[in-house]
Protein backbone atom coordinates (compact mmCIF):
# COMPACT_ATOMS: atom_id res chain seq x y z
CA UNK A 1 0.00 0.00 0.00
CA UNK A 2 1.11 3.55 -0.63
CA UNK A 3 1.45 4.28 3.07
CA UNK A 4 3.70 6.46 5.16
CA UNK A 5 6.14 3.57 5.63
CA UNK A 6 7.29 3.99 2.02
CA UNK A 7 9.75 6.76 2.76
CA UNK A 8 12.40 6.46 0.05
CA UNK A 9 12.94 9.80 -1.68
CA UNK A 10 10.78 11.92 0.60
CA UNK A 11 12.27 15.22 1.75
CA UNK A 12 12.07 17.52 4.70
CA UNK A 13 12.76 15.24 7.66
CA UNK A 14 15.97 16.99 8.59
CA UNK A 15 19.39 15.54 9.33
CA UNK A 16 20.12 12.04 10.54
CA UNK A 17 20.98 12.00 14.22
CA UNK A 18 23.76 9.48 14.87
CA UNK A 19 24.12 7.97 18.30
CA UNK A 20 26.72 5.87 20.12
CA UNK A 21 26.52 2.16 19.50
CA UNK A 22 26.30 1.23 23.18
CA UNK A 23 22.86 2.86 23.38
CA UNK A 24 20.44 -0.05 23.16
CA UNK A 25 17.20 1.45 24.49
CA UNK A 26 16.02 4.93 25.42
CA UNK A 27 13.44 3.94 28.03
CA UNK A 28 12.48 0.83 29.91
CA UNK A 29 9.17 0.51 28.06
CA UNK A 30 11.16 0.04 24.83
CA UNK A 31 12.74 -3.10 26.32
CA UNK A 32 9.32 -4.46 27.15
CA UNK A 33 7.86 -3.47 23.76
CA UNK A 34 10.65 -5.32 21.97
CA UNK A 35 10.20 -8.37 24.16
CA UNK A 36 6.42 -8.63 23.80
CA UNK A 37 6.63 -8.19 20.03
CA UNK A 38 9.20 -10.98 19.76
CA UNK A 39 7.44 -13.25 22.27
CA UNK A 40 3.97 -12.86 20.79
CA UNK A 41 5.41 -13.57 17.35
CA UNK A 42 6.13 -17.04 18.71
CA UNK A 43 2.38 -17.65 19.04
CA UNK A 44 2.56 -18.15 15.25
CA UNK A 45 -0.82 -16.50 14.85
CA UNK A 46 0.50 -14.09 12.21
CA UNK A 47 3.40 -13.87 9.79
CA UNK A 48 6.20 -11.32 9.68
CA UNK A 49 4.55 -9.91 6.56
CA UNK A 50 1.22 -9.47 8.35
CA UNK A 51 3.10 -7.73 11.15
CA UNK A 52 4.73 -5.32 8.70
CA UNK A 53 1.38 -4.66 7.09
CA UNK A 54 -0.19 -3.92 10.48
CA UNK A 55 2.52 -1.31 11.12
CA UNK A 56 2.26 0.33 7.72
CA UNK A 57 -1.53 0.48 8.06
CA UNK A 58 -1.20 3.19 10.67
CA UNK A 59 -2.64 6.49 9.40
CA UNK A 60 0.27 8.41 7.84
CA UNK A 61 0.13 11.24 10.36
CA UNK A 62 0.35 8.78 13.21
CA UNK A 63 3.08 6.71 11.58
CA UNK A 64 5.31 9.71 10.97
CA UNK A 65 4.94 11.08 14.49
CA UNK A 66 5.47 7.77 16.30
CA UNK A 67 8.76 6.29 17.42
CA UNK A 68 9.52 2.88 16.00
CA UNK A 69 8.68 1.00 19.18
CA UNK A 70 5.40 2.92 19.31
CA UNK A 71 4.69 1.79 15.76
CA UNK A 72 5.53 -1.77 16.77
CA UNK A 73 3.25 -1.57 19.79
CA UNK A 74 0.30 -0.16 17.87
CA UNK A 75 0.82 -2.75 15.14
CA UNK A 76 0.94 -5.52 17.73
CA UNK A 77 -2.32 -4.34 19.29
CA UNK A 78 -3.99 -4.60 15.88
CA UNK A 79 -2.54 -8.09 15.29
CA UNK A 80 -3.70 -9.31 18.70
CA UNK A 81 -7.23 -8.06 18.09
CA UNK A 82 -7.36 -9.48 14.56
CA UNK A 83 -6.12 -12.85 15.84
CA UNK A 84 -8.80 -12.87 18.52
CA UNK A 85 -6.23 -13.12 21.30
CA UNK A 86 -7.08 -9.76 22.93
CA UNK A 87 -10.20 -7.64 22.48
CA UNK A 88 -10.34 -3.96 21.66
CA UNK A 89 -12.19 -3.47 24.94
CA UNK A 90 -9.34 -5.05 26.86
CA UNK A 91 -6.87 -2.68 25.20
CA UNK A 92 -9.12 0.29 25.92
CA UNK A 93 -9.51 -0.65 29.57
CA UNK A 94 -5.97 -1.89 30.03
CA UNK A 95 -7.06 -5.09 31.73
CA UNK A 96 -8.25 -8.61 31.01
CA UNK A 97 -12.00 -9.01 30.49
CA UNK A 98 -12.17 -12.55 29.19
CA UNK A 99 -9.99 -15.65 29.53
CA UNK A 100 -7.11 -16.28 27.15
CA UNK A 101 -7.25 -18.59 24.16
CA UNK A 102 -5.93 -21.80 25.75
CA UNK A 103 -4.42 -23.44 22.68
CA UNK A 104 -2.00 -20.63 21.98
CA UNK A 105 1.65 -21.58 21.51
CA UNK A 106 3.69 -19.91 24.25
CA UNK A 107 7.42 -19.18 24.17
CA UNK A 108 8.94 -20.84 27.26
CA UNK A 109 11.90 -19.14 28.96
CA UNK A 110 14.08 -22.18 28.36
CA UNK A 111 13.38 -22.03 24.63
CA UNK A 112 14.19 -18.35 24.07
CA UNK A 113 17.88 -18.80 23.22
CA UNK A 114 17.20 -21.63 20.81
CA UNK A 115 14.29 -19.87 19.09
CA UNK A 116 16.22 -16.63 18.60
CA UNK A 117 19.32 -18.46 17.36
CA UNK A 118 17.30 -20.59 14.95
CA UNK A 119 15.39 -17.74 13.38
CA UNK A 120 12.84 -18.41 10.72
CA UNK A 121 14.17 -18.95 7.20
CA UNK A 122 12.04 -17.59 4.37
CA UNK A 123 13.61 -19.35 1.39
CA UNK A 124 11.37 -21.92 -0.27
CA UNK A 125 11.65 -24.19 -3.30
CA UNK A 126 10.06 -22.88 -6.50
CA UNK A 127 9.01 -25.39 -9.15
CA UNK A 128 9.51 -23.14 -12.16
CA UNK A 129 12.94 -22.11 -13.40
CA UNK A 130 13.90 -18.49 -12.83
CA UNK A 131 12.66 -16.17 -15.56
CA UNK A 132 15.68 -13.85 -15.36
CA UNK A 133 19.40 -14.24 -14.93
CA UNK A 134 22.21 -11.99 -13.77
CA UNK A 135 22.82 -9.27 -16.33
CA UNK A 136 19.26 -9.17 -17.67
CA UNK A 137 17.66 -5.78 -18.09
CA UNK A 138 14.28 -5.59 -16.42
CA UNK A 139 11.59 -3.04 -15.79
CA UNK A 140 9.70 -2.99 -12.52
CA UNK A 141 5.94 -3.00 -12.82
CA UNK A 142 3.87 0.03 -11.98
CA UNK A 143 2.04 -1.64 -9.10
CA UNK A 144 -0.08 0.20 -6.55
CA UNK A 145 -1.77 -2.54 -4.53
CA UNK A 146 -4.01 -1.57 -1.63
CA UNK A 147 -2.52 -4.47 0.33
CA UNK A 148 1.05 -5.22 1.37
CA UNK A 149 3.92 -4.94 -1.08
CA UNK A 150 7.69 -4.66 -0.84
CA UNK A 151 8.17 -2.76 -4.09
CA UNK A 152 8.87 0.82 -3.00
CA UNK A 153 7.21 3.64 -4.91
CA UNK A 154 10.50 5.18 -6.01
CA UNK A 155 11.43 1.93 -7.78
CA UNK A 156 8.20 1.32 -9.72
CA UNK A 157 8.18 1.44 -13.53
CA UNK A 158 11.96 1.78 -13.57
CA UNK A 159 14.58 0.00 -15.65
CA UNK A 160 17.33 -1.83 -13.84
CA UNK A 161 19.66 -4.78 -14.16
CA UNK A 162 19.61 -8.08 -12.31
CA UNK A 163 22.77 -8.29 -10.22
CA UNK A 164 21.90 -11.26 -8.00
CA UNK A 165 19.62 -14.24 -8.27
CA UNK A 166 18.77 -15.45 -4.78
CA UNK A 167 16.41 -18.42 -4.45
CA UNK A 168 12.70 -18.83 -4.00
CA UNK A 169 11.31 -16.74 -1.14
CA UNK A 170 7.97 -16.38 0.56
CA UNK A 171 5.98 -13.71 -1.30
CA UNK A 172 4.99 -10.99 1.18
CA UNK A 173 2.17 -9.58 -0.94
CA UNK A 174 0.14 -12.76 -0.42
CA UNK A 175 1.59 -13.98 2.87
CA UNK A 176 0.67 -10.74 4.65
CA UNK A 177 -2.99 -11.39 3.95
CA UNK A 178 -3.30 -15.08 4.78
CA UNK A 179 -3.27 -15.94 1.08
CA UNK A 180 -0.32 -18.31 1.32
CA UNK A 181 3.44 -18.20 0.98
CA UNK A 182 3.30 -18.49 -2.83
CA UNK A 183 7.12 -18.45 -3.12
CA UNK A 184 8.72 -16.73 -6.08
CA UNK A 185 12.26 -16.21 -7.30
CA UNK A 186 13.92 -13.25 -5.64
CA UNK A 187 16.43 -11.00 -7.40
CA UNK A 188 18.57 -8.02 -6.56
CA UNK A 189 17.89 -5.32 -9.14
CA UNK A 190 20.22 -2.36 -9.47
CA UNK A 191 19.12 1.01 -10.82
CA UNK A 192 21.18 3.96 -11.94
CA UNK A 193 20.28 6.97 -9.82
CA UNK A 194 19.36 8.92 -12.95
CA UNK A 195 16.65 6.37 -13.74
CA UNK A 196 15.15 6.87 -10.28
CA UNK A 197 15.73 10.55 -9.61
CA UNK A 198 16.21 12.23 -12.96
CA UNK A 199 18.94 14.26 -14.58
CA UNK A 200 20.12 15.97 -11.42
CA UNK A 201 20.89 12.64 -9.73
CA UNK A 202 24.34 11.84 -8.38
CA UNK A 203 26.11 10.15 -11.35
CA UNK A 204 28.17 7.98 -8.98
CA UNK A 205 25.07 6.52 -7.30
CA UNK A 206 23.22 3.27 -7.87
CA UNK A 207 20.42 1.89 -5.73
CA UNK A 208 19.55 -1.80 -5.46
CA UNK A 209 16.36 -3.42 -4.21
CA UNK A 210 15.44 -7.04 -3.67
CA UNK A 211 12.51 -7.79 -5.94
CA UNK A 212 10.27 -10.83 -6.39
CA UNK A 213 9.80 -12.10 -9.92
CA UNK A 214 6.23 -10.85 -10.28
CA UNK A 215 7.46 -7.30 -9.68
CA UNK A 216 9.49 -7.52 -12.90
CA UNK A 217 9.06 -7.51 -16.67
CA UNK A 218 11.79 -7.90 -19.27
CA UNK A 219 13.01 -4.43 -20.26
Amino acid at each position, binding site marked *: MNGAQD*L*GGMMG*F*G*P*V*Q*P*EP*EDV*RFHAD*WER*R*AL*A*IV*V*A*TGATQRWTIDAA*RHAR*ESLPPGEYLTS*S*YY*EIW*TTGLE*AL*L*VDAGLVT*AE*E*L*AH*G*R*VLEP*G*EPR*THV*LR*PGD*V*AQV*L*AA*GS*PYDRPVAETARFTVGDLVRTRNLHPTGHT*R*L*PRYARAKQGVIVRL*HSGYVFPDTNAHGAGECPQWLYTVRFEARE*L*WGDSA*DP*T*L*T*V*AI*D*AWESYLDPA
Partner: protein
Amino acid sequence: MRADDSARPVPIAARVQALEAILVEKGYVQTASLDAIVQTYEREVGPRNGARVVARAWVDPDYRKWLLADATAAIASLGYTGRQGEHMVALENTSDTHHLVVCTLCSCYPWPVLGLPPVWYKSPPYRSRAVLDPRGVLADFGVTLPATTRIEVHDSTAEIRYLVVPMRPPGTEGWAEQELARLVTRDSMIGAGLALVP
Protein backbone atom coordinates in the same frame (compact mmCIF):
# COMPACT_ATOMS: atom_id res chain seq x y z
CA MET B 1 -8.85 -2.57 14.60
CA ARG B 2 -7.61 -0.49 17.48
CA ALA B 3 -8.85 0.53 20.84
CA ASP B 4 -11.37 3.32 21.22
CA ASP B 5 -9.72 6.57 20.16
CA SER B 6 -10.80 8.23 23.38
CA ALA B 7 -8.30 5.97 25.09
CA ARG B 8 -5.48 7.07 22.78
CA PRO B 9 -3.74 9.67 24.92
CA VAL B 10 -2.52 6.98 27.32
CA PRO B 11 1.25 7.48 27.47
CA ILE B 12 3.16 4.81 25.60
CA ALA B 13 4.97 3.53 28.69
CA ALA B 14 1.65 2.88 30.43
CA ARG B 15 0.18 1.31 27.30
CA VAL B 16 3.07 -1.12 26.97
CA GLN B 17 2.91 -1.95 30.67
CA ALA B 18 -0.82 -2.66 30.44
CA LEU B 19 -0.35 -4.72 27.29
CA GLU B 20 2.36 -6.82 28.90
CA ALA B 21 0.14 -7.41 31.93
CA ILE B 22 -2.77 -8.47 29.70
CA LEU B 23 -0.59 -10.84 27.68
CA VAL B 24 0.89 -12.42 30.81
CA GLU B 25 -2.49 -12.77 32.53
CA LYS B 26 -4.02 -14.36 29.44
CA GLY B 27 -1.17 -16.82 29.33
CA TYR B 28 0.30 -15.79 25.98
CA VAL B 29 3.71 -14.69 27.22
CA GLN B 30 5.82 -15.47 30.25
CA THR B 31 7.66 -12.73 32.10
CA ALA B 32 10.86 -14.78 32.29
CA SER B 33 10.81 -15.20 28.51
CA LEU B 34 10.46 -11.45 28.06
CA ASP B 35 13.38 -10.88 30.39
CA ALA B 36 15.47 -13.39 28.45
CA ILE B 37 14.71 -11.64 25.16
CA VAL B 38 15.74 -8.27 26.58
CA GLN B 39 18.88 -9.78 28.08
CA THR B 40 19.82 -11.32 24.72
CA TYR B 41 19.61 -8.08 22.76
CA GLU B 42 20.87 -5.80 25.47
CA ARG B 43 23.86 -7.83 26.63
CA GLU B 44 24.71 -10.57 24.15
CA VAL B 45 23.78 -9.88 20.53
CA GLY B 46 25.29 -6.64 19.26
CA PRO B 47 27.71 -5.09 16.80
CA ARG B 48 30.77 -6.67 18.39
CA ASN B 49 29.62 -9.86 16.66
CA GLY B 50 29.82 -8.22 13.26
CA ALA B 51 33.14 -6.61 14.15
CA ARG B 52 34.54 -10.07 14.75
CA VAL B 53 33.32 -11.19 11.33
CA VAL B 54 34.92 -8.18 9.64
CA ALA B 55 38.21 -8.54 11.49
CA ARG B 56 38.38 -12.20 10.52
CA ALA B 57 37.79 -11.26 6.88
CA TRP B 58 40.59 -8.71 7.10
CA VAL B 59 43.18 -11.20 8.33
CA ASP B 60 42.06 -14.43 6.66
CA PRO B 61 41.79 -14.34 2.84
CA ASP B 62 40.00 -17.68 2.72
CA TYR B 63 37.42 -16.49 5.22
CA ARG B 64 36.97 -13.24 3.28
CA LYS B 65 36.33 -15.21 0.11
CA TRP B 66 33.81 -17.44 1.89
CA LEU B 67 32.08 -14.45 3.48
CA LEU B 68 31.65 -12.75 0.12
CA ALA B 69 30.44 -15.98 -1.53
CA ASP B 70 28.19 -17.36 1.23
CA ALA B 71 27.83 -14.89 4.08
CA THR B 72 25.15 -16.89 5.88
CA ALA B 73 27.44 -19.91 6.29
CA ALA B 74 30.62 -17.91 6.95
CA ILE B 75 28.91 -15.87 9.67
CA ALA B 76 27.27 -18.96 11.17
CA SER B 77 30.70 -20.56 11.47
CA LEU B 78 31.51 -17.90 14.09
CA GLY B 79 28.31 -18.70 15.96
CA TYR B 80 26.09 -15.88 14.75
CA THR B 81 22.77 -17.13 13.47
CA GLY B 82 19.08 -16.60 13.88
CA ARG B 83 16.34 -14.09 13.85
CA GLN B 84 16.75 -11.38 11.21
CA GLY B 85 19.98 -12.94 9.99
CA GLU B 86 18.67 -16.04 8.28
CA HIS B 87 19.82 -14.93 4.82
CA MET B 88 22.99 -12.86 4.84
CA VAL B 89 24.93 -11.11 2.08
CA ALA B 90 28.26 -9.36 2.72
CA LEU B 91 29.21 -6.26 0.74
CA GLU B 92 32.86 -5.27 0.63
CA ASN B 93 33.76 -1.62 0.52
CA THR B 94 36.76 -0.70 -1.61
CA SER B 95 38.45 2.49 -2.71
CA ASP B 96 36.24 2.36 -5.83
CA THR B 97 32.87 1.40 -4.36
CA HIS B 98 31.14 2.26 -1.10
CA HIS B 99 28.07 0.29 0.00
CA LEU B 100 25.36 1.77 2.19
CA VAL B 101 22.45 -0.26 3.57
CA VAL B 102 18.97 1.05 4.34
CA CYS B 103 15.46 -0.27 4.77
CA THR B 104 13.21 2.42 3.32
CA LEU B 105 10.04 0.43 4.07
CA CYS B 106 10.60 -0.55 7.69
CA SER B 107 13.62 -1.45 9.81
CA CYS B 108 15.18 -4.60 8.30
CA TYR B 109 18.61 -5.05 9.84
CA PRO B 110 20.98 -7.98 10.45
CA TRP B 111 20.34 -8.62 14.14
CA PRO B 112 22.74 -11.55 14.76
CA VAL B 113 25.76 -9.50 13.66
CA LEU B 114 24.70 -5.94 14.53
CA GLY B 115 22.08 -6.34 17.24
CA LEU B 116 19.03 -4.12 17.29
CA PRO B 117 19.00 -1.22 14.85
CA PRO B 118 19.78 2.24 16.20
CA VAL B 119 16.97 4.77 16.27
CA TRP B 120 18.33 6.73 13.31
CA TYR B 121 18.27 3.60 11.12
CA LYS B 122 14.52 3.24 11.73
CA SER B 123 13.68 6.93 11.44
CA PRO B 124 12.41 8.99 8.50
CA PRO B 125 15.52 11.19 7.98
CA TYR B 126 17.71 8.18 7.17
CA ARG B 127 15.11 6.01 5.45
CA SER B 128 13.95 8.81 3.16
CA ARG B 129 17.31 10.22 2.15
CA ALA B 130 19.70 7.25 1.97
CA VAL B 131 18.43 6.26 -1.49
CA LEU B 132 18.30 9.81 -2.86
CA ASP B 133 21.20 11.65 -1.28
CA PRO B 134 23.58 9.18 0.37
CA ARG B 135 26.45 11.65 0.32
CA GLY B 136 24.31 14.04 2.32
CA VAL B 137 23.48 11.26 4.76
CA LEU B 138 27.17 10.37 5.08
CA ALA B 139 27.91 14.03 5.81
CA ASP B 140 25.54 13.79 8.78
CA PHE B 141 27.90 11.10 10.07
CA GLY B 142 30.94 13.26 9.36
CA VAL B 143 31.99 11.08 6.42
CA THR B 144 33.13 12.55 3.10
CA LEU B 145 34.03 10.18 0.27
CA PRO B 146 36.02 11.11 -2.82
CA ALA B 147 33.74 12.51 -5.53
CA THR B 148 34.75 9.65 -7.80
CA THR B 149 33.81 6.84 -5.40
CA ARG B 150 30.82 4.88 -6.65
CA ILE B 151 28.08 4.58 -4.05
CA GLU B 152 25.86 1.52 -4.08
CA VAL B 153 22.86 1.79 -1.82
CA HIS B 154 21.08 -1.43 -0.88
CA ASP B 155 17.45 -1.12 0.11
CA SER B 156 16.59 -4.19 2.23
CA THR B 157 13.18 -4.83 0.72
CA ALA B 158 13.15 -8.61 1.28
CA GLU B 159 14.49 -11.07 3.86
CA ILE B 160 18.10 -10.73 2.69
CA ARG B 161 20.15 -8.94 5.35
CA TYR B 162 23.27 -7.04 4.40
CA LEU B 163 26.55 -6.64 6.27
CA VAL B 164 29.05 -4.10 4.95
CA VAL B 165 32.71 -5.04 5.27
CA PRO B 166 34.46 -1.70 5.66
CA MET B 167 37.94 -1.07 4.29
CA ARG B 168 40.76 -2.04 6.58
CA PRO B 169 42.38 1.14 7.85
CA PRO B 170 45.98 1.94 6.91
CA GLY B 171 48.64 1.46 9.54
CA THR B 172 47.22 -1.82 10.85
CA GLU B 173 49.60 -4.23 9.14
CA GLY B 174 50.36 -7.14 11.40
CA TRP B 175 47.60 -6.34 13.88
CA ALA B 176 45.88 -9.22 15.61
CA GLU B 177 42.26 -9.98 14.83
CA GLN B 178 41.03 -8.87 18.25
CA GLU B 179 42.77 -5.51 18.00
CA LEU B 180 41.38 -4.99 14.52
CA ALA B 181 37.85 -5.76 15.69
CA ARG B 182 38.03 -2.73 17.98
CA LEU B 183 38.37 -0.50 14.91
CA VAL B 184 35.17 -1.84 13.34
CA THR B 185 32.28 0.41 14.30
CA ARG B 186 28.62 -0.47 13.98
CA ASP B 187 28.09 2.41 11.57
CA SER B 188 30.94 1.18 9.34
CA MET B 189 29.12 -2.16 8.96
CA ILE B 190 26.01 -0.33 7.71
CA GLY B 191 28.12 1.83 5.40
CA ALA B 192 27.22 4.97 7.33
CA GLY B 193 30.75 5.21 8.68
CA LEU B 194 34.32 4.06 8.12
CA ALA B 195 36.46 1.84 10.29
CA LEU B 196 38.45 3.79 12.87
CA VAL B 197 41.97 4.80 11.91
CA PRO B 198 44.46 4.07 14.71
